[in-house]
């Protein structure tokens, strides 16, 4: 439960008492999480769609449909993750790791890596 840095949630009764610096950090973290979840999450979902479209062992049209249908679950999960992670930085790191993994799978499936 103990955590370093301010939570991104504001409790109205507490907000008045927060020093301006803490408030700024709270908003900064919030902005970063929103960007990571919405923008980064979309990018991750798009990447997952491309990778799965090209690598699922199905007919080409079937792979495209399956990958695209699943993409919204990926995006939603990414948004949930961005707001659930213990810190904003951790949220971003998690998404980047996911993207890196997907790229790696892609390269392996495409035979560009041993």
């Amino acid at each position, binding site marked *: 439960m103990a*955590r370093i840095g301010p939570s991104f949630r504001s409790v109205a009764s507490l907000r008045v008492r927060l020093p301006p610096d803490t408030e700024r950090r709270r908003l900064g973290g919030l902005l970063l999480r929103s960007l990571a979840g919405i923008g980064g999450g979309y990018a991750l979902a798009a990447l997952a769609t491309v990778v799965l479209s090209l690598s699922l062992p199905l007919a080409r049209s*079937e792979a495209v449909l*399956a990958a695209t249908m699943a993409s919204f679950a990926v995006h939603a999960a990414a948004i949930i993750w961005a707001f659930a992670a213990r810190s904003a930085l951790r949220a971003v790191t998690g998404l980047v790791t996911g993207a890196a993994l997907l790229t790696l799978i892609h390269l392996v499936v495409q035979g560009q890596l041993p």
Partner: protein
Amino acid sequence: MKEGFRQSMAWLHRWAGLLVGWVLFAVFLTGTAAYLRPEISYWMRPELALSRPGPADAEVAVRAMQAMAPNSPSWFINLPDERDTTLRVFWREPGARGRGFREAVLDPATGRTVEARETLGGEFFYRFHFQLHYVGVLWGRWIVSICAMFMLVAIVSGIITHRRIFADFFTFRPGKGQRSWLDGHNICAVLALPYHLMITYTGLVLFMLMVMPWGIDRAYPGGRAAFNAEAFGSAPPRPRAGNAAPLSPVLPLVQEAERRWGGGRVGRIVVANPGDANATIQLVRADSERISYNPQSLTFDGPTGALIQDSGEGHPVAEVRGWMYGLHIGRFAGPLLRALFILSGLAGTAMVATGCVLWATKTRQQAARQGRVGFGTHLLEHLNVATIAGLPLAMAAFFWANRLLPAGMPQRADWEVHVFFATWGLCLIHPLFRRGRQAWIEQFAIGALAFALLPLLNVLVTQRHLLATLSEGDHVRAGFDLGLLGCALMLGALAWKVARHRPAPASSRVPSSIPRPGRSVEAAR
């Protein structure tokens, strides 16, 4: 950590819901109305006589089209069924680009055009719920898709937040202020949870190739025609040959299709290049027959009537998409299941509405505790009234406009829609001049009155009033009039409820109502 996680999700749930709550309310309510699209369209065209689908409809329609639009590049003929008893035809104007379509309603007995008042009918609610109005079609679809994504996040985070999901199923504590709103919100949400998840996810899937085009663009760099052929087995279009050839009779083809589909019915006939040697006749199976919306179709050569292509059952994943599509639009559903769909849709509408109200109640309590009610609180409450109470009233106004605007008026169909939005706009202004709950009461009450008087107005301005339709056996119109009275009752009950509501102790300054720190998650939901 666990509590922190839950609180984060509660925060996410509130904001994801709030930011798009008003759009979602409108989408849910008009989308629920869209389940009755054929019925609404039929009711809004009182000129159309009650007709029953017959075996010769296809032949009649094709002969009518040959007389009306011999040079059109394509005809679309929608055959009547039990729900939509009208024979509707669309055709592309020769030489027109893009969406240059004309349409007509035919009398199945004679094939002559039926003159009905110009109206969008149920099509308006259907279109509005996924592409809004007064904004470009693509803009509207993007906005609604983004709101649906917020909805999905709100649902998932709401489930995580909600730790007593089954206990709350049976919990409703009325007359307890904020607590009751929360209970109401939970009941609407949990009772129809599978429906909410289904409708939101499938809604996203409907426009997935627009929102998430990256997979298809990479896998099919040459364009989407190849994808459509591979995924849905659609025959590639045949170019015009240039020399004339008469079209083969359509009735034997319809019989052939029904035999192949084991008695399944033809819902739509698409004729490409009629009168040309390269004409094709495509028979599409009625979408009320299968859950999957993947069109099952047979394509015949126009002049000879030989079968060119059978789209078959489709590939497994394409069928999954078809089921999602079909589940969303619910056209496969018989009367009982359709009623359940409508109830679930209303539960979704109520879920969004109670969520918005709950938020406003909470904000006001917090503001009151801090001693001042600011602009934000007022804006929230104001928009809640205008959206939740205003939209049903605007829908009633749409029906009134349908009955009262003169039949020959230019752009009549557009004006019905303008009346809808003008009324909604008035509902947005009205709360400025009212204090407290007065705006809620008045808008609900006027909405109830507007719905209740519609069947009476019918007696005055049309021949298709309740007495006539009941004795004629026109169940669709009679049922619709009764449904309008049901809407009136519902809105009336809401108005009454708000009017006799006394602020419960929970919303005043009784200390027990203020969430204790340990219970803050419960209250924060």
